């Protein structure tokens, strides 16, 4: 946290999230205000469903605004936005995008589309190969990585499917 560059980035991130949270808080206040008050059912007006979410939304808006103001005061000055956006082009961000992408494709697309064991094996295989060769600081030889990743992928796919289907009686997607 001592690095001024990191500090500047964090300030920009806080400024953005502060504004987003303040907006979210106000939106929640609005939805809670317009939530049915259930007068027909004759409930006590102090127990309307929107009461607590409304109050929480108000506090969230306040905290978000406080965060944004603090970040704005401390982060004024040169080069903050450039630093902030340079974050998106770093090597770490590339790795992150790959992990996130693989994970989302597996959970949201492959599971349900393919038989579970096959989806799992595919995911494990691609994950291992990508991070052992392409995105590794010290890449392994491709054929070796392919072979062992394949073995592990098939094993994981079959074992997980069998354990959950026959052991825990889960009807897998």
């Amino acid at each position, binding site marked *: 946290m001592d690095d001024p560059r990191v500090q500047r980035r*964090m300030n920009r991130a806080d400024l953005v999230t502060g504004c987003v949270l303040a907006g979210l808080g106000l939106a929640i206040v609005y939805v809670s205000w317009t939530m049915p008050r259930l007068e027909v059912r004759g409930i006590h007006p102090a*127990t309307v469903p929107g009461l607590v979410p409304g109050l929480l939304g108000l506090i969230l808006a306040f905290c978000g605004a406080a965060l944004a103001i603090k970040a704005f005061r401390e982060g004024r000055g040169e080069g903050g936005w450039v630093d902030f956006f340079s974050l998106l082009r770093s090597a770490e961000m590339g*790795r992150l995008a790959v992990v996130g992408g693989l994970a989302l494709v597996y959970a949201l697309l492959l*599971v349900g589309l393919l038989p579970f064991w096959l989806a799992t094996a595919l995911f494990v295989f691609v994950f291992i190969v990508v991070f052992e060769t392409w995105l590794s600081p010290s890449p392994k030889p491709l054929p070796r990585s392919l072979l062992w990743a394949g073995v592990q992928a098939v094993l994981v796919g079959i074992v*997980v499917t069998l354990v959950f289907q026959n052991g825990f009686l889960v009807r897998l997607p």
Partner: protein
Amino acid sequence: MLEGLLLLGQGIAHFLTWGALFNLAWASLLGIVIGALPGLTATMGVALLVTLTYKMPPDQAILCLMALYVGAIYGGSRSAILLAIPGTPASAATALDGFPLARAGKAGLAMGIATTSSALGTLVGIFFLALIAPWLAEFALRFGSYEFFWLALFGVLISGRLTAIDNPLKGYIAGILGLLAAMIGMEGLHAYQRFTFGIGALGGGVDLIPAMVGAFGFAEILSVMKQRFTAEMATSDDRVLPRLADITRYWRTTIRSGVLGTIAGIIPGVGEDIGAWASYAAARRKSKEADRFGKGSIEGLVAAETGNSAVIPGAMIPTLTLALPGSAAAAVLIAAMFIHGIRPGPLLMTENPQFLYQIVGILFLTTIAITIYGLSLTKLLVRVLLVPREKLMPVVYVLCVVGSFAITQRMFDVYVMVAFGLIGFVLREMRYPMAPLVLGIVLGELLDVNLRRGLLLSDGDVTPFFTRPISAVLVTVIAVTILMSMPMVSRRVTQIFKRLDPQGRTG
């Protein structure tokens, strides 16, 4: 007193069957392995194991979960000592002195001391659990809606304040987001469905287990895989079994750290990491060899490991008696107890008095198990640390997906897991603590229902919230917590104290 001891004996004896001991053995070993592997935390392990044990009888399922929890908090010390990477956040303070010891060729000694300190820390915590919990449960019978509302608010606030990484505001925001997440779905007073936007699956609200698997599993996978470096391991070939003199020399530190760890456990949502840091700081302040801290001090290692282990029994005190989770993993345990039909809270001692002593028994037996494993299985655990993350993380993610799906068998829970994973990751990168978020999800309904029920009882009048004696105390504590987290106020207060005490001892 005698009755308590009898129940305690029964609690331990209850698990002295072959089946239970087998469960204890695998769950605590699995816990140590999960704890030792960087990127797999105790909370994530417990959350995933809930999905694997929900078909077991309640006592055995809770046994497995608790054993895994204790094992994981202990196991984190292995990677902290050998790799300088804490296996779980709880072992961050352990790495400060453990790794220098390992580099000086004393890895065995460090691992041995970490083992005995963890065991002693758990024992100190168990002592207070057995002592305080029955009393607190009886006291809590006096709590009404007003008190429970403040208690829920206090839990989220204090957790936000104490777990905040650099800005208390972010701790509070995390807590509020958790509370808001709990507002989704059917509310408990009039059965109205809030914030569902026409999505039927949201009617039941956000389930805690998939949310936790996401926030502690998927999010952790993202942050582990993001980093490019790989760590180097220190070698260990000296004797692991510590000498009795090494253990007894720091008995003061052990007891002090045990007490501090227990207190950190009792405070809602404040977990093992804070317990370890608090005992480490206190030990350094009181130590005669304070300059050795951070350079391989055995006393520092004792403080950190005793402190984090004592948190677990400490955290069970509010968890069992008030249903207020004492740590993030305890929040998962509450969810697991509900799945198994055990209702933690003030009525637990009336409805199910033997359960508290069964928990004590589990903790006691697990302590024995981890001591045996810790002092004997050094080579195996070193091998575990060599498993590359490229091969491990995809498997963990598969388990996150299947685990979230398994309990209610619907894809919606997988989407909840993914959403909380992504949100959790972004929040964590921006230095928001996760514990208050979790606490918010658990306590949201308690806060909502009790505020409105209190208002209904008082016919819309808010004064009982402030004038009832216990409520008044809670309000004062909450007000002081909020005020002291504002830099302006805390600076003023420090100035006033300095004026009263010119030697400046208050710092």
